């Protein structure tokens, strides 16, 4: 039995725990405490790791890891990224500077992006349509990146599945390129 993992990262409140819960076959193990940051309007925040689980038909397991959102835990990001199948970066478009938030995670995973499949999921676009999802593509292009950028609502299982599907497509492209 082999364990594989996909990483979910992003700011506090971007929806990492919710995204994992949308697809996990078990309630995600959550390491939340009372949020002491008054600038973030949520009662609990993750200070360790969330993880969810999918058991595959050959017995292998796919772990869905959610990183802590605070930048002070960025030392964990590289550790978690090792041997991951891919990284999902979730962005909350209702925050004051969501493009700036994206930059933080692109910098934090700079050593892994390019090596690992990656997708950016932008949430809350319906209520906060600016910046437009195309602005994220432009920002990534400015860094020489062509990462997938999707408009998602992580409360919807289909949207989270599409994020994972996008990672799988990149892995499948890798396999075709090897032949």
């Amino acid at each position, binding site marked *: 039995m*082999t364990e*594989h993992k996909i990483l979910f990262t992003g700011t506090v409140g971007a929806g990492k725990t919710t995204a994992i819960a949308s*697809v996990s076959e078990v309630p995600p193990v959550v390491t939340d405490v009372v949020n002491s940051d008054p600038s973030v309007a949520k009662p609990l925040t993750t200070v360790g790791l969330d993880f969810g689980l*999918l*058991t*595959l*038909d*050959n017995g*292998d397991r*796919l772990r869905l890891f959610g990183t802590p959102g605070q930048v002070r835990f960025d030392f964990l990001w590289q550790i978690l990224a090792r*041997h991951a*199948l891919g990284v999902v970066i979730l962005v909350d478009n209702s925050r004051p500077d969501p493009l700036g938030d994206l930059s933080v995670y692109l910098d934090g995973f700079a050593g892994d992006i390019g*090596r*690992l*499949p990656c*997708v950016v999921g932008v949430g809350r676009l319906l209520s906060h349509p*600016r*910046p*437009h*999802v*195309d*602005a*994220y*593509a*432009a*920002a*990534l*292009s400015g860094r020489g990146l*062509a*990462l*997938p*950028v*999707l*408009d998602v609502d992580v409360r919807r299982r289909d949207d989270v*599945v*599409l994020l*994972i*599907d*996008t990672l*799988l*497509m*990149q*892995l*499948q*492209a*890798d*396999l*075709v*390129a*090897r032949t």
Partner: protein
Amino acid sequence: MRYSLFVVRQIVFLMYRLGVHGLSEAEAGLVRAYVALASTGLREPWTFAGDGQCDALLADDAPEAAALASRRRGARVLGFVGDTRLGWADMLPRPLRIDEFERWLNRIGERLAPATAAAAPSTAKEVHFRLRRWPPAELLRSQPDRTRMAAALSRQALNAAGLARATGLDEGECGRFMQLLQGFQLLQAARPVPSTMVASAPAPVGWTLLRSIRRRLGLSA
């Protein structure tokens, strides 16, 4: 007289033609005037082609309709008038100003230059392409298959056959989507480079694993 006509014909032949699509009559008229007024500041000679065959097309329309018009009129470069915050390549902001128009037209002219044209990739079967940037949302139109094809091309340089193998989609459909992306200058020709990630994974990441994950998520294999 005959010599003068010969020279005139050669000059017209060397001029680039700018067409418009979807612009209002007033705006099309403004573009026509700008092409004439900007001529001294342009590196290449341009003429206004209106609704006819052209080398470059300036459009204000949905991306796919604009791409269709572009192909129908033989345009090699497609640009848009609109909101530059969208970050689309070759977007001209409103209101149209002659200085910005001149700079825009010079950029377009560079892409049409013979050396660039000769190097411009086609979507021939043997050529591999990779996305230079993620496509506009309107181009993907929330269609999962288009998102999948774009995701594969964001990662590796593929031809239509390779894209079909990667996505499980019909090769013809893959080729048509690549042509659409090409029309928006979203593809760059590149050599396929195998990802180092696959080699470094602790367990083989092969088709078996990926299909197993897809089945588990209820996705088509």
